[in-house]
């Protein structure tokens, strides 16, 4: 086994200022075990007293080679890995992957499946924002927020468990539709969420929105303009908090989002506080979408009946020879996707979640690339961190809402 090569200050000379080499400023590692880095993010900070002069992110601690692994699996089996990318938004990842495969092989999705996809994707967005709110507020020392948010998150995870049997890694959305129809208890469970959650958002607002400590820690911190955001590839709530009204659900609607009436909240300030307000408003809008989708949830099948790509229902396998053959072929060889490449993006809770999928005509993806929003959002941190205090840097990291599984893939 070769010796482990250490990264020395010499390797990073071009990234820090001259003063750090002479020892006038201090180099400090923040992370990868620091609790406010939300996982395994390492930041090399150059500090002058308590002021950050340079911030050099070091990522890759959670790299699991998902893109490489997916290339070795058939289309159905590769989907299971997509849950593990952004583990706060598993349903959104499934949706992005399924839509990419559907675009490649030209599959139609029944309207009922589309509506259920929207409901689950919005609930997942809500729970992702809850985790963000809890942890970001915890970074600012608002301990009780964390407990409230995780209490509410359980209700949503219960719905996921009801549908798919899994709380987080659901793999419920499949290419061509859903794994199976939602159970009868689903509607009551979602209605319960719709009834209780708006009041809970008011409670969070009462605790935080006008809290002087919160305002002190967030107002004017980590400011980004709209142009800077776009130039750095920053998307999602961070972009909208900088005044750019760009939401893929509205601008390039997919899965029937065009039928629902919802607002895209924006703020002009572009600081940590604006991101907080935008995300809170997004939570309300998510509930609004879920309510509309649930009210006009159509009846019908939840899976495409193109059995060349979608497994036939269990009830048919016992009586139809053809269904049995399709089932056997799909779960042994998989299906062959036509040759070509596509790029498809959906709006994840963190921004544009894109899938680049290329097929060589075989049963496995030839190349699958995930454009994960956290990767680009995190890149803007050296810009935001310049000249702030270390304590403010913690607030900035919280406001980006990074998920390291999403960054490192």
């Amino acid at each position, binding site marked *: 086994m070769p010796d482990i090569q250490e990264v020395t200050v010499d390797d990073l000379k071009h990234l820090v200022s001259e003063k750090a080499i002479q020892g006038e400023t201090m180099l400090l590692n923040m992370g990868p075990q620091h609790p406010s880095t939300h996982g395994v993010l390492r930041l090399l900070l150059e500090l002058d007293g308590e002021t950050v002069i340079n911030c050099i992110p070091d990522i890759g601690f959670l790299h699991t080679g998902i893109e490489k692994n997916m290339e070795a699996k058939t289309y159905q089996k590769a989907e299971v890995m997509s849950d593990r990318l952004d583990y706060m938004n598993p349903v959104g990842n499934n949706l992005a992957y399924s839509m990419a495969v559907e675009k490649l092989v030209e599959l139609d999705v029944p309207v009922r499946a589309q509506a259920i996809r929207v409901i689950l994707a919005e609930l997942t967005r809500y729970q992702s924002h809850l985790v963000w709110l809890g942890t970001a507020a915890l970074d600012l020392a608002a301990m009780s927020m964390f407990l409230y948010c995780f209490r509410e998150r359980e209700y949503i995870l219960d719905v996921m468990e009801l549908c798919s049997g899994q709380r987080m890694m659901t793999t419920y959305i499949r290419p061509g539709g859903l794994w199976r129809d939602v159970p009868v208890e689903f509607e009551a469970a979602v209605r319960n969420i719709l009834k209780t959650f708006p009041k809970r958002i008011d409670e969070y607002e009462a605790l935080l929105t006008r809290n002087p400590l919160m305002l002190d820690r967030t107002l004017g911190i980590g400011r980004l303009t709209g142009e800077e955001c776009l130039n750095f*590839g920053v998307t999602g709530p961070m972009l909208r908090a900088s005044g750019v009204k760009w939401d893929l659900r509205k601008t390039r609607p997919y899965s029937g989002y065009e039928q629902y009436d919802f607002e895209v909240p924006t703020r002009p300030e572009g600081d940590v506080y604006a991101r907080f307000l935008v995300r809170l408003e997004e939570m309300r809008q998510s509930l609004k979408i879920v309510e509309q989708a649930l009210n006009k949830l159509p009846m019908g099948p939840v899976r495409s009946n193109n059995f060349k790509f979608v497994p036939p229902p269990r009830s048919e396998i016992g009586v139809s020879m053809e269904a049995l053959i399709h089932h056997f072929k799909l779960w042994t060889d998989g299906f062959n996707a036509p040759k070509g*490449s*596509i*790029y498809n993006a959906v709006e994840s809770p963190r921004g544009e979640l894109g899938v680049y999928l290329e097929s060589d005509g075989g049963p496995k993806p030839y190349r699958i690339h995930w454009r994960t929003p956290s*990767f680009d959002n995190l890149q803007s941190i050296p810009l935001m961190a310049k000249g702030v205090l270390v304590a403010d840097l913690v607030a900035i990291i919280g406001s980006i809402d990074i998920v390291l599984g999403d960054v490192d893939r």
Partner: protein
Amino acid sequence: MDKKLQPIIEELEKEFGATSTEYRGDASLVLPREKIVAACQKVQGLGFELLSTLSAVDYWPQQEPRFHVIYEFTSVSMNLRFEIRVPVPGINPSLPTVTHIYRNANWRERELWDMFGIKAEGHPDLRRILMPADWEGHPLRKDYPLGYEEPQFTFNFEEIDLRKPYAKE
């Protein structure tokens, strides 16, 4: 293809000698690698503010070109999207950097170097990003094998443990 996108694609085709294709309604341009910086400047000037992603595909064992580097552009102001593909040969693969045009290309080009070994010439900080600094090889190349770990069961735990490559005291 979008009607607003049609003239933009035609303009780029004429100016940079590119060839365009359309697949599932998405436009894609193939450009020689010498022209990618000028093309990116032009594309940004045309209102494509966002470089959605930058990645590559490996067509090994084909050598000329072995890689296609893919740039996905998004226009927030016009709500358009298209793709540029740049063929890169397998021997000494490199292409000019676009970091000074799209700032988020910085990490994406580091990832390109890390995963495919394609050098971005003129990149300010070309280090590995996802893999450890002392890693050998470029994992997303097609000639790089997918590794595995032998599962240990009670009957063969010690036997496998002996040859397992991890730190022991």
